[in-house]
Structures are given as C-alpha cells and as structure tokens.
C-alpha cells in the first residue's frame, strides 16, 4: 500500500434526496441500518452484559463472556449499545476509562490476522501476524501500572478456528493473566460452540459466563416495527401483525421482518400511482411475503418449454417404472420418445434431449452427474415428485 493512503469513497456532488412522502420516511426508518438508540425487547440482555462489563471495569480485572444466538436477533447491536453507554459513563467519570477494540472473524482473510488488527487498534503498529502475536503476548503479560482496561469484541468467533486453535487459545488466555485487564465479549451463532469445536483447555478458559439470545417472538417483532415507525402513520396495525407472525413462525429474524416491511412500502407506492390511498395494507404485505418466501420451482416448471416439461414427465414415469429415484438419461430418453409418440409430437434427437437435460440441470431443477458420461449420466430430481406433478398438472 502506498504510504499514508486514506481509504475513502469519493463524495457525491449532488446532495441525496430527502424523503418526500410518508412512505419514503417510513422506508428510511425501516432500513436495517437505521439502528435505534436503544433496542426494544432486549433490555434484559442489555442489562446483563452491561453489569458484567461494568463490574470487571470497576474491579480492574479481566474476563470473558460468550454470546450466542441465531442471525438477526440483535446480538451485535446490543453489544454495541452496551459499549456506547459505558463510553458515556466513562466520559462523565462514573467509570474508569477503557479502550474498545472490535474484530470480526468474517472480515479477516485468515484467523491469524486477528493479531494484526488488535495490535493496530491498540498501538498503531503494522506488523506481520507472527510478530503481532509475540508483541501482544508481551503486552498483556507484563504489568503496566497505568494501563487502561481493554474491551475486545470478537464477532463471528467460529471463523477464528484453526487446527491448533492457537488464536482462540491466546484470545481467551490473555484475560486470565493477572495484569492484562482485558475483557472479551465473544459472539457466535451456535450455542454449543465451545463444546463442539474447542479443545478442553480453550473451552475452560472461555469460562461459563454465557448468554444466549432467543429468536424474537411475534409480539417483540411487532414492537420493533412499531417503535421504528413511531410518529409515521404508514402501516395498518394488522399488516404489521401479519408480518411479525409470519417471520416469527419461520425464523424470528428481525432483518427479514424489516426487509418485508420495506418491500411492502414499495409495493404500496407502486399501487398508489394507480390512485390507491396512502397506507400499507394487508394486501401489500401479503404480496411482499409471497415474493420473498415463495418457492420458485413451480413457476420455473410452468414456464419451461414443452419438451422440458415432457422430459420431467418422462423422469417421473421412469422413476415409477424402476422404483428408484435415479435414472440414466438413456432410460429417460426412451420414456421421452414414448411420451412424444402418445402426444403426437415429433420426437427429439438425442442431442436435443441432452440439451434439454443440461438446461434443466443448470437451473438446478435436476441434479446431474459430470457431463462426460453422455447417455449414461444419472439424473435426479432436485424437488419432490409431488411438486413436479402439481406444477405439470394445473395447465
């Protein structure tokens, strides 16, 4: 990298448009990036983490905490909120001052790069990974009378796994040392990660302070949306409830919920151009949900060409004949010719059938073997036979 290069995206010459209508305002607030000051429905978790870090800060000791939960349940946002509150408290001298470092396993090209990033945050030095590990070990093991406490957030912890697990081991070993004053908040998706992938000595250093974030229930999701839309009258109550119930039943992912709402405002806006009133209704929300969750296979089959459909029928026929859910192209081809004869269509050549087969394979309606076996290539359906039958019948 050239020296002193400043990472920056060019600025825009024209200012961005301000939201002009209620719906646009709502869309802006519903964007996932518009994280509110305080997260609704996560007060308890917030308090727990806050107390944990605060007590360690006051004592001047170190420690670890493991936070787990499925994606989209507000883990990272809550932790960031905790840090923000602590920083405010430290500024007003209620708490001793501390440093705050964050790394994310997914944003590293290699687990060992974690050392480099931590060191750069702490001291501003840029060194290689091995050297950084040595420097960090020295930093945390030697007593420094004026050292501030460091709060380290490790997001996507499972990506830091290496065969020897030395990165994880080091991370969790430092806080146990007397002078390190290091507090680690480790975040990952699976609850049993320490038991599953960590060696005993790593898991034992991680300790037993754990917290798991439950998926949001429909009431919580509803509250999240309503709190974001406070003061903006863009959604019907029932519409919000429908979205939250659907999402809660599927995954409890708040991101999904917000995305659906945002899409619903777009659909509503589009409908408004035709003169409908200015409010997101049930119909809009239903359409958005359909769009995001519906399975595309059925539609893909219905819009396939005639011979592609016959080929699928031939596959079903061959499966029924053989009783096995796998067939070679040659077998299917013979069924295909027979079906064409029944329908009174000129039967295709083998080249054509191979082309049909590979087209269906490219959309992954079929699963195919490597192409070099030609007629002896085995074919399998990538969706259930019932779905194929359903798609082909309704015509």
């Amino acid at each position: 990298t050239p020296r002193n290069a400043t990472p920056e995206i060019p600025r825009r010459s024209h200012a961005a448009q301000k939201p002009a209508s209620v719906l646009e305002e709502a869309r802006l607030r519903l964007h996932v990036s518009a994280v509110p000051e305080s997260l609704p429905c996560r007060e308890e978790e917030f308090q727990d983490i806050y107390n944990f870090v605060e007590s360690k800060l006051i004592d001047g000791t170190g420690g670890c905490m493991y936070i787990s939960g499925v994606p989209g349940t507000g883990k990272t946002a809550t932790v960031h909120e905790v840090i923000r509150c602590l920083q405010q408290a430290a500024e007003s001298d209620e708490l001793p001052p501390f440093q705050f470092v964050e790394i994310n396993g997914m944003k590293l090209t290699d687990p060992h790069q974690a050392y480099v990033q931590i060191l750069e945050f702490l001291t501003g030095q840029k060194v290689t990974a091995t050297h950084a590990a040595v420097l960090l070990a020295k930093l945390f093991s030697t007593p420094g009378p004026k050292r501030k406490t460091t709060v380290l957030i490790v997001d996507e912890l499972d990506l830091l796994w290496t065969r020897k697990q030395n990165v994880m081991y080091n991370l969790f070993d430092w806080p146990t040392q007397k002078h390190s004053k290091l507090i680690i908040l480790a975040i990952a998706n699976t609850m049993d990660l320490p038991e599953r992938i960590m060696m005993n000595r790593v898991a034992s250093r991680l300790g037993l302070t754990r917290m798991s974030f439950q998926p949001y229930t429909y009431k919580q999701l509803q509250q999240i949306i309503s709190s974001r839309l406070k003061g903006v009258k863009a959604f019907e109550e029932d519409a919000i409830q429908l979205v939250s119930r659907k999402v809660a039943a599927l995954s409890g992912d708040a991101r999904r919920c917000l995305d659906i709402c945002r899409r619903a405002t777009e659909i509503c806006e589009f409908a408004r151009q035709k003169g409908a009133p200015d409010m997101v209704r049930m119909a809009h929300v239903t359409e958005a949900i359909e769009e995001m969750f519906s399975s595309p296979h059925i539609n893909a089959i219905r819009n396939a060409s005639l011979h592609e459909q016959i080929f699928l029928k031939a596959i079903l026929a061959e499966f029924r004949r053989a009783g096995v859910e796998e067939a070679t192209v040659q077998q299917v081809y013979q069924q295909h010719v027979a079906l064409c004869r029944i329908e009174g269509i000129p039967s295709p050549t083998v080249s054509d059938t191979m082309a049909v087969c590979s087209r269906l394979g490219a959309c992954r309606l079929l699963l195919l073997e490597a192409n070099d076996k030609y007629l002896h290539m085995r074919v399998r359906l990538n969706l259930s036979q019932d779905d194929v039958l359903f798609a082909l019948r309704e015509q």
Partner: protein
Amino acid sequence: MSKRRLKESCGVSAECISQVQQLLRERFCHHSSAPDKLFGLEQQYRYLLELLKRTTLQGESNSALLIGPRGSGKSTVLNRALKNLKETKQVKETLLEVHLNGKWSSIAQFHVWFQQFRLLQTNDKVALKEITRQLQLENVVGDKVFGSFAENLAFLLEALRKGDRSSSRPVLFVLDEFDLFVHHKNQTLLYNLLDVSQSAQTPVTVLGLTCRQDILELLEKRVKSRFSHRQIYLLNSFDFKQYMKIFKEKLSLPAEFPDESFAQKWNDNVQHLSEDKAVQDVLQNLFHHTKDLRSLHVLLMLAVSTVTVQQPLLTAAQLQEASRHHRNDSRANIVHGLSVLEICLIIAMKHLNEVYDGAPFNFQMVYNEFQKFIQRKAHSMYNFEKPVVMKAFEHLLQLELVKPLERPCARAQREYLLMRLLLDNKQIMDALQLYPNCPTDVKQWAASSLSWL
C-alpha cells in the same frame, strides 16, 4: 466476386445487403447492444429501475438477485436499466459501478458492455483487487493494486465504513455468475458486501445474476440473513403468439435504415414469412424445445448469413435449411463418417446391449459377436484380421462412441477392458438408414438382433 459484378447482377446493391447483414449480425451476436425492446420483462425492468433510482438518488442500500435460466435476459434488463438511468447527468456523476464476474466472460461482451475489463474472479483475492481497481481507491497506482490480501480487505472495508448515506457516492456491485461467488472460502466477499448494505455506511447495492433456482440454499446462514431476499425472477413466460411477434421484431429492419424502399420490402417479406405455415412449423419446433431467445438468434443468424445479392429476401426454405443445421444430431453425424467395419462393430455392440440388457462389454465379446456374423455369411468379404478390428475399435474409442467404465491403467489388457456404448439404438438405426452405400446384409443384421444367436 468483385463488387462491380455484384452490382450488375441484381437490382439491390451489395452495400445494402452488407448493411442488412451488419445490422442483424450485431443484433444477434451482441446480446448486450442495448435492445430496442424488452419482451415480457417490463415488470422486472421497472422493479430494477426503481431500485437503482433509489440507490442513486436517496442513497438507500439494497441487495437483490436476478434469477432466470440462461438466455432469459438478465443482463439485458440490467444494462437497459443502467443505460436509462445514466441518461441524466446527475446520476451519471453519482453512481459508481463495480462489475465482477464469477468466471471468464467472453471477449465480445468485454468491449461492448462497459468498456471495462472484467476478469476472472476465481477467488476473493482477485475479486477484491478488481473492486479496488474499479473503484479507483487510493492504494491503486496506475492499474496495479498494492498490498496483501488482508491489507486490501481492511482498506476497502475502512473506505466503505467512512462513508455515509447522504454524502458519499453510492456504489453498485454487479456480481455476474453469482453462484460461483458462493463457493469462495467462507463466503467472505459476499458477507462483507451484504454486511455493508445492511449497515449505516457507504450506500451500496449488491446485484447478483444467476441461473440457479436454489441459490438461497447455498448461502451461509449469516450471509443469508444479511441478504434482503429481493428476488427478481425472469422466466421466459411468453406463449407462441408472442414468440412469433418477437421473431418479427428481431428480424425487422428499423425505420432509420438508409435504403427505405428496401427496408420496406424486407419488412413486408418478414411479415409474409411470419404467416407462412412452413416457417411457423420451424419456429414452433424450436419453441417446443427451448424458449431461450438465444437459440432463436442462432437460427436467424444462420438464415440471415445465406442472404446474398442474388437472393436479397429471406425465404421459408432458407429458414428450414437453417433449422436443419441448427438441430442436427451431432453423434449421428459422426456415425455417417465411419467405415463399414466400424459400423459392423457398433451393430455388434448394439446386439450385445440388447441381449445382456445394457451390461458393459469388452473388445473380445464384440469381436466374437462380429465373428458370428461373418461365419453365417457365406461370402466373407468383411473377414478382417483381429488387429485390424482392434484398430477400428480403438478408433471408436477415440471418437468417444465407446467409453471405458474406468480409466485404463497400464496393467489391464486392452481386449479385456470393460466398455459402454454411448449411442442409443434409435440413433444407430437412424444413422444406418442414411448411411451411404450400406451393404444390405449389414442392414439386415442390424435389424435382427436375436436371430443370429
């Protein structure tokens, strides 16, 4: 033929024909050169245009996937939307574009589409360098990107983090062959791009183009959660009537064609063709096989190439001829070029397949079967030595009409390697019908498999 002689021979000038050829070739070969019309894709186009508009004007971050079978117009719709969008100066100055491709894209697409190089992004490292280069960040000197992979990633993320919604230029990431990006290690690039689109940083829009219907199942859970599940499906959802309309539209000359009278004549002829039963049959046949418009382009291209000064207007016969070329069975063509001995071997294999129900065979079995045929025949004009037959068999092996079950190793003898025939019975019989000067007894032998046992 010289130009002058051409001119004398017919009323239509050679220049006119070459203009027609050039215009139509451009239309059929460069799918990207902004099409005049979108067929049945208006809804998807509007969705995409709205999305891009919001990104550029309001700085909203988004992510979407364009999903559809090959040749269904994914890139066309995108290019059209971008072209339309960039007509206003304000947008052109605002939007930054980064185009990444999962694999090598052809040279032809290269120049016409964006006058930008698109390289092989086989791993995140290369992709990242390409992003940095296309964004012209400050660690780019000339055309080279400096620093290690880790530094590049940190640099890019830092740059994106510093921006915000209202003041930095929005970035559009187009990931062509999106499904190939999914196979990168840890899906790091996808995670980071989608994560930026879901957080309050530089506004980015991530657009993926793919033909796989099951693409969402390939994403890791945390990547999937960050993707906003906007899926735009492009399915060739037109029927035959619309297909005919597309055919007419594709073949017609535009109003700004220099020789107006010829353009009129040509378009009348196209209209006339579209009502011809023979042409309709040809098109119907193609339509039944595939709705892919690229196949139609290939067919029309073949037909248009035969237009000459002597015959300036397309006829139904030319289209039929083109269709015949287009829909040829490649394996049958190979069979036509074989010698009689090789044909005999194929027939012997076919009989073995019928008798033993598709079980694999070796050379020795085929040779025995062939010997039986010769012994029954009184005059043995095909009585070749075994090495000669072996040679013929190896030729079939080279043409991949026969394929060994497993890789041949040095130890196994060639005569005893297990093989399979890569031809269907129907193919063999059809090819024999067309085989020039096929001996009658061979034909008879081919028709009757069991009587020789």
